């Protein structure tokens, strides 16, 4: 009997304590409201349609993708960038910045530790972005899939960071260079445009489809991508398809281990030695990052490819 009464008392006491605790917590929550801030620095819509409010001029910017890093550096934000990913290798100054992790999995703690006020993210960073939003850090998502969208993202970043003029200059410069290339290529009629095959990957065989940036670069450089009709970014295609479409030029990305690749790398595959590009030894490596990263170096890629395809036009 004695124990039962004691237990009842204990239960009553704990309930009382619990109620008091809950009340205290609520009271703490309802503190005086924070003062209204002065109007935000910028209210923008990013490339995923999100409304992003930037309260004051960003001074500590973190980029979560190599493409975004190149864009940010190109419009003059070098001094204000405090963090980049492990893969951000261009320009050289980017290598000196603090690293916040990989491309697909940025390290949230590393990001927070750098106290950013603006994060330039990509469209695969949703979990990270959610956390950043919860903590009140402005996150701008850039996901350009074409050259026009790259221009748009540069202008967006410019508007977000007060560098609109610099961004506009860079875009104009890029457009000017493309214009020059187009002018030089204008003399070549449609029938004389060459068929190009870009090998993104060898095993499995992957090429650049109609929805890829690489395709656009090839097009702007005056070439005809043999897989432009495949409406994917990087389709896995069959040997047969390449042999049948008979490209006149073959391009592959220059990376580690691919420096010595020449025609015979392709010629040893069954039947490939009959492909025009292999027979005439028109097999070239191109700067891999420039052609596949959505950033300012796409223009370099266009020029590089155009000169390889139509050397006479660019003497």
């Amino acid at each position, binding site marked *: 009997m004695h124990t039962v009464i004691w237990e009842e008392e204990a239960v009553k006491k704990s309930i009382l304590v619990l109620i008091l605790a809950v009340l205290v917590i609520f009271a703490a929550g309802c503190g005086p409201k924070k003062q209204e801030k002065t109007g935000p620095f910028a209210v923008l819509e990013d490339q995923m349609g999100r409304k992003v409010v930037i309260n004051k001029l960003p001074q500590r910017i973190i980029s979560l993708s190599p493409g975004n890093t190149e864009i940010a550096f190109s419009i003059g934000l070098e001094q204000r960038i405090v963090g980049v990913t492990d893969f951000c290798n261009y320009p050289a100054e980017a290598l000196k910045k603090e690293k916040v992790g990989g491309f697909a999995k940025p390290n949230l703690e590393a990001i927070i530790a750098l106290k950013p006020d603006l994060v330039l993210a990509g469209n695969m960073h949703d979990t990270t972005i959610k956390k950043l939003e919860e903590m009140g850090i402005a996150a701008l998502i850039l996901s350009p899939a074409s050259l026009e969208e790259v221009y748009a993202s540069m202008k967006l970043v410019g508007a977000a960071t007060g560098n609109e003029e610099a961004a506009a200059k860079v875009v104009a410069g890029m457009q000017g260079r493309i214009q020059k290339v187009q002018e030089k290529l204008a003399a070549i009629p449609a029938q004389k445009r060459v068929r190009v095959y870009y090998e993104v990957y060898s095993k*499995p065989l992957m090429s650049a489809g109609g929805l890829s940036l690489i395709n656009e670069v090839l097009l702007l450089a005056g070439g005809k991508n043999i897989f432009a009709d*495949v409406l994917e970014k990087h389709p896995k295609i*069959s040997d*047969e398809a390449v*042999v049948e479409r008979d490209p006149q030029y073959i391009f592959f990305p220059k990376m580690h281990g691919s420096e010595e690749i020449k025609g015979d790398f392709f010629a040893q595959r069954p*039947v490939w030695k*009959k492909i025009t590009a292999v027979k005439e030894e028109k097999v070239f490596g191109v700067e891999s990052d420039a052609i596949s990263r959505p950033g300012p170096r796409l223009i370099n890629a266009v020029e590089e490819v155009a000169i390889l395809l139509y050397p006479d036009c660019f003497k």
Partner: protein
Amino acid sequence: MQAPAEANKGWDSGRMRKTLLLVFLILILALTIIIATVKGTVTIPWKSVPAILLSPVPVLNQLFEHIETSEINKDILLYIRLPRVILAAVVGACLSAAGAVFQGIFRNPMADPYVLGVSSGAALGAILAILTGVNLFFSGFTAVTLFAFAGGILSITLVYYMAKVGKAVPVMTLLLAGIAVSAFLSALVSLLTYFSGDKLHEVVFWMMGGLSGASWAQLLTMLPYVLIGYSCIHYYARELNILLLGEETAQQLGVETDRVKKILMAGASLLVAAAVSTSGIIGFLGLIVPHFIRLAAGPDHRFLLPSSALLGASILIAADTLARTIISPTELPVGIITALAGAPVFIYLLKKRKKLRYFNSSEG
């Protein structure tokens, strides 16, 4: 039970039926090969196929002289498509026959060719070759193929010696050892996959199974292993029948179970290793095809083994043709198609057959 004596009777209806089935399967295979060589990213007009194939044959080529065949079609047919179709046939045959053997040895309808860890070992070998970027090229076999083959053989050797007790290799222990080794090697494979960086694509694609890049050189190098493996298992087909009755019964009937099991396993593993090393991990064939044949013609391994091989060959050719034509010019990995198609079929089989009565388990 008088199984052994009965099986030796002369031309009874069962035997007739089985022979007819074999002939039927051969015809199906031939038809599948023909269709597969015609269909593809590049449509080769069907008249061209015999024209190209028979052109070196002195008398028959007169029949096809008038047919125009483009140089490109000829090259694609002879050097890309035909080796691929033949490879599909060989791999399908290997996996199905090996599946039948393992189902017999373990007296378990769920056994498949990968039950003893050959696939995990091969995957580990392949991923090591891919990640270290070793550049071997040995008569049509790349480093990946060689390492995968070695990995497969090594892992089953490990399983065998783990399960061995004196001279005997108890079946239950084998199965458990296979599961353990498989799990461990798979974990290693996962770990390496995680750190594969820019080789990730190649690793994942290899494991999903694919027949692209087939060449005649590769087929010729594979052939001896396939022939040796198949000879081993067919040699003991009768003993495999007796093994189905249980090991003790088989021993009492005069079968040297340890030796028979060892040779059967070695032969089947050779087949599986040869298949997996050239085309990655293609699932469901080894599991389902033998059941199909058993439904049609019973569990006599003297017919089951060649029939499974033939049916497996046809099915894999068909699956591969689908893989390379369904979203042409993009290709799907063939392992995905066999799994997608195989699973519903297996479920249907399960429902149709309340008991898989050819397997002696304690429930009978």
